[in-house]
């Protein structure tokens, strides 16, 4: 939310820099024009006077003239003036110690800038300008005047300092104002962003009293947002309901199996009771009937207990153990047998290898996946469960010989896409449980060539990432 105002401030600074550059360029051009005008006047003044002196070789008058030129006060003062003959020898200089009469100064001519040049280099604090002087249409020689440009340099430095400070202040002020204005303009958006992006809290609706009705565009944006929030809430509620229903559907199916499992031995047990009534005096019959009743009732007790354990109110409270997989085997075996399916059970972990995982969710995950596998494998198919240790996780593999997980069921298991009602019982429930334990689900094939849904659950030492 700071980016926009910062961008505005940056733009203002950029404009300030460009304006400063323009001012400096104009200053340089003005200084060069000023110097050119001054220099041309100076050259013209000397040219008008020096001619007869040169012709008469009147050294003193030439020196006196050049000396007076360099004695003027003020900025742009000529520092020294030197007259050089066409052969490059000094005729006279206002600084005779530096340029004695007769000294060869060809290099000085080469280094000087013509007074008519387009640009002068004023940065060194001194610039040598030259012009050929004529008298009665005869070239007398070249006059070189060194001008003191320290005043110009100082003026430039002052201007740069002023510009830098002025621009910095102006830009800062403008940037601050821009920042405030942009912030004010973007405040409704910031509010919206806050309402949308508070971590896991989800979308928060904007209260009616906070909607600026004077600003119709923002008000409409907020209204639309609030509608969106309600729609999302409704959708979430629906998903929750669907998940609950799946849970009940799976429960219902299990209940059917359970009823079947209880019902199957029930006929035999009742027959045994009849046998007992018919032959109460035959000790061998009573004993074998009692044994039969005992086995049948124990089996029923085990089935009921396993069911209760799976669906108990607080399943996370108990730690996972090998016994849980025995229960699962007990619960799924009748379903497999009913379909004439071959059940492969590979739980060969040492005791304690699966410590740290809660029993309830793992049982639900495994049971749901096994029920689905059984349904997918069809009559006479193969299903299986494989439990293995992989580094700091356990791998739970549920196998089936079915045609593979169709796309719409795959989406339930592997993504958060909305759930369509029907089919794939409990797959979204499995996904939620696995996510809750910090695990991952993937699809693959078992070494026997069966479809395999692999669930990796981390063995968090601290007791789970998301209890």
């Amino acid at each position: 939310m700071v980016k926009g105002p910062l961008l505005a401030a940056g733009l203002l600074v950029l404009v300030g820099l460009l304006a400063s550059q323009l001012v400096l360029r104009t200053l340089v051009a003005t200084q060069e024009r000023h110097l050119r005008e001054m220099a041309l006047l100076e050259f013209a003044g000397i040219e008008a006077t020096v001619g007869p002196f040169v012709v008469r070789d009147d050294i003193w008058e030439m020196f006196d003239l050049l000396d007076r030129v360099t004695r003027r006060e003020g900025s742009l003062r000529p520092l020294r003036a030197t007259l050089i003959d066409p052969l490059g020898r000094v005729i006279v200089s206002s600084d005779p110690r530096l340029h004695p009469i007769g000294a060869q100064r060809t290099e000085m001519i080469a280094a000087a800038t013509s007074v008519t040049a387009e640009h002068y280099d004023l940065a060194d604090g001194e610039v040598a300008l030259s012009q050929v002087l004529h008298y009665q249409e005869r070239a007398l020689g070249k006059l070189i005047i060194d001008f003191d440009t320290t005043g110009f340099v100082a003026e430039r430095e002052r201007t740069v300092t002023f510009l830098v400070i002025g621009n910095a202040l102006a830009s800062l002020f403008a940037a601050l104002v821009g920042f405030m204005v942009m912030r004010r303009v973007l405040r409704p958006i910031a509010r919206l962003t806050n309402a949308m992006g508070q971590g896991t809290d989800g979308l928060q609706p904007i209260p009616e009293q906070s909607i600026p009705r004077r600003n119709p565009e923002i008000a409409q944006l907020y209204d639309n947002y609030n509608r969106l929030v309600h729609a999302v809430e409704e959708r979430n509620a629906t998903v929750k309901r669907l998940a609950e229903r799946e849970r009940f559907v799976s429960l219902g199916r299990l209940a059917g199996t359970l009823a079947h499992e209880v019902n199957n031995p029930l006929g035999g047990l009742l027959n045994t009771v009849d046998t007992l009534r018919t032959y109460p005096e035959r000790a061998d019959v009573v004993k074998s009937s009692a044994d039969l009743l005992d086995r049948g009732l124990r089996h029923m007790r085990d089935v009921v207990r396993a069911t209760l354990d799976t669906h108990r109110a607080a399943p996370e409270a108990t730690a996972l153990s090998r016994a849980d997989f025995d229960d699962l085997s007990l619960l799924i075996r009748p379903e497999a047998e009913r379909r004439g399916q071959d059940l492969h059970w590979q739980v060969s972990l040492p005791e304690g290898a699966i410590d740290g995982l809660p029993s309830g969710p793992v049982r639900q995950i495994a049971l749901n996946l096994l029920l689905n596998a059984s349904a997918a494998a069809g009559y006479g198919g193969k299903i299986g469960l494989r439990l293995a240790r992989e580094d700091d996780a356990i791998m739970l593999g549920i196998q089936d010989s079915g045609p593979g997980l169709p796309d719409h069921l795959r989406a339930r298991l592997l993504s958060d896409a909305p759930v369509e009602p029907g089919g794939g019982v409990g797959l979204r429930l499995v996904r939620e449980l696995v996510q809750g334990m910090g695990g991952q689900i993937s699809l693959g094939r078992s070494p026997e060539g069966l479809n395999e849904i692999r669930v990796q659950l981390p063995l968090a030492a601290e007791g789970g990432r998301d209890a």
Partner: protein
Amino acid sequence: MVREYPSGRAGPARLAAMRLKRRMFMAGFTASMLGAPAVLRAQPAAFRFGLTPVFLDNDWQLLEHLRSHLRAEMGRPIEFVQRRTYQEVTALLLMGDLDAAWLCGFPLLQNRERLAALALPLWQGAPLYRSRVITSAGRAAQDLGDLRGDIHAYSDPDSNSGHLVTLSELLRRQHRPEEFFARSFFTYGHRNVVRAVARGLAQSGSVDGYVWDVMRRHEPELVDQTRIVWESEDFGFPPIVVSRDALETAQSQRFLAALEAMPRTDAGQQALAMLQLDGFVLPEAHSFERIAARMRIVAERG
């Protein structure tokens, strides 16, 4: 800015050059400000006094005191006439365009048949002065002979101390002046010789010893950049010269009396103080003998 004197013989180019000279500007300034109007100037009442750089003639305050004293003593307006060279002033005097001039002994002797000395200034108690050859203060040269190969600044071709003495001294020492110095030039003023040497335009110069001393008080920062390498014998001080015909006229005698009266008036005293002179005395027959001797050395060489 500059008034052209009716008596002037200078060409336009000469005047254009002079226009830029501060010295001449000052002269023109004083002439135009203090000199008599053209109508009055035509009257014989104005006394025309020619000045040369034998003294510091660029000090208008000095000229003002001098004029004030002379006007009061003579009862006539005084017109100062300045030219760049001794030759020009001498010519004006010879032509009768000047009533008197402060000249050097050398041009006086050159025209001894037509000019005569009216009075001699007294400097440090005597009507004598010396020529000096100077060089820059930091230079090791000890004698005139050490200056071989220099660029040398002379004052005026007709100046005794600023030209004749050095020239004759070199000849006396068997040097050829035109070969002894690599180059020489005239500055037309003793003060300019000091400036040329101080600034390094010339490595050495010939200067009037009296002017050098006076300048030392007025412009020590300039004179201290120079030092004396050689000093001549005494010569008769640059005299006040009149036409030989006018030597005994009442006008000349009044002028002489005015000069002699200088120590007795305020303006005269102030002028003398600025000139650092004690007064004026009558010349003696042998006053310029030594200059004549120097002239003979040059003349013998041909």
